[in-house]
C-alpha cells in the first residue's frame, strides 16, 4: 500500500488513507480487548473470595517483585514512546534502539512474572487450587500472554524497519504496536491495583 499517487486519488475520492484505516481498525480491536479483560476482571472480582479453605493471595503474594515489574512495564511504555518520537524525526537507528529496549524490558517483565508463577506453584497455589487462584492465574496470565505476543511482534517490526527503513507502511506498523504496548500497560495498572494492591490491603 506504499504507492504515493494512489493516496492522492483515494483522498480526492473521499476514501481514507489505507494506513489510517488500519490504525482505526486496530483501535477498535483494542476496544474489544478491553471488553475481554473486563470479563476476566469481573470473574476475578466475583470469585476472589472463594479460596475453598486453601491459601489466600495475601498469604503468598510477594509485592517486591510486583513493584519492580510494574516500574519495568511503565518504563517500557515510556521507551516505546521514545521510539515513536525517533521515528517521527526520521531517525531509524533511534527507532530500532528504543523498540529493542522496550522489548527487552517486556522480556524482563515476563521473566519476573514466570518466576512469580513458579514460586506460587511451589507454595501450593496452582490454577486448580481454588476458584481464586484459577481467576488469578487466568487474568494475570492472559495479560502476560498478550505481552509475550507483543514482544514477538516488536521483534518482527524491528526486522522490517531494519530491512525497509521508515515508510508509510512500516510507520503504521510502529504506530500500531506502540498503541498495543501502551494498552498493555493500562491493563497492567488495573491488574496491579485490583489483583495485587487490593489483595494485600
Amino acid at each position, binding site marked *: 500500500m506504499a504507492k504515493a499517487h494512489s493516496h492522492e486519488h483515494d483522498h480526492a475520492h473521499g476514501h481514507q488513507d489505507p494506513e489510517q484505516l488500519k490504525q482505526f481498525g486496530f483501535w477498535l480491536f483494542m*476496544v474489544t480487548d478491553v471488553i475481554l479483560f473486563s470479563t476476566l476482571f469481573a470473574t476475578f472480582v466475583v470469585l476472589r473470595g472463594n479460596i475453598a479453605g486453601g491459601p489466600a493471595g495475601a498469604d503468598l503474594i510477594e509485592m517486591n517483585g510486583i513493584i519492580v515489574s510494574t516500574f519495568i512495564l511503565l518504563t517500557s511504555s515510556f521507551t516505546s*514512546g521514545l521510539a515513536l518520537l525517533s521515528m517521527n524525526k526520521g531517525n531509524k537507528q533511534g527507532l530500532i534502539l528504543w523498540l529493542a529496549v522496550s522489548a527487552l524490558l517486556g522480556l524482563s517483565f515476563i521473566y519476573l512474572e514466570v518466576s512469580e508463577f513458579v514460586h506460587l506453584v511451589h507454595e501450593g497455589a496452582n490454577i486448580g487450587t481454588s476458584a481464586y487462584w484459577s481467576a488469578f492465574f487466568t487474568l494475570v496470565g492472559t495479560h502476560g500472554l498478550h505481552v509475550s505476543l507483543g514482544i514477538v511482534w516488536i521483534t518482527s517490526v524491528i526486522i522490517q524497519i531494519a530491512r525497509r527503513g521508515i515508510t508509510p507502511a512500516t510507520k503504521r506498523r510502529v504506530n500500531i504496536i506502540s498503541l498495543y504496548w501502551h494498552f498493555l500497560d493500562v491493563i497492567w495498572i488495573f491488574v496491579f491495583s485490583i489483583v495485587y494492591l487490593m489483595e494485600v490491603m
Partner: protein
Amino acid sequence: MASHQQNEHQAHSHGSMKSYILGFILSIVLTIIPLVAVLNDMFNKTTTIVIVLVTAVLQLLVQLLFFMHIREEDGPRYNLISLVFAVVILLTIVIGSIWIMTYNAVAV
C-alpha cells in the same frame, strides 16, 4: 501524500519529548501513591480502595492523553466514542456481575 505526512507530523508533533517525560513522571507518581497507601496501612479499607481505584483511573487518563494522543483525533471522533462505549460496557459487565452474583441465593 504530502498533505497526509504533514497531518501525521502535526498530530504527532504534540507527542513531544516533554509530554512523554511528563506522562512518565505522572505515571510513576500515580503508582507510588497507592503503593504507599496500601503498604503502610495508612487508611481504612474503603478509603484505600478509593485511592487505589482513583489513581488507577488517573493513570489510565495519563496514558490516553500523553501516550495514546486521544485528544488529537480529527473529527468525527470515533476513537473516543468507541472507547466511551467500551467503558460503559465494562462497567456493566463488572458491576452487573457483582450485583447479580452477590445477591444470587443459588450461588455458593
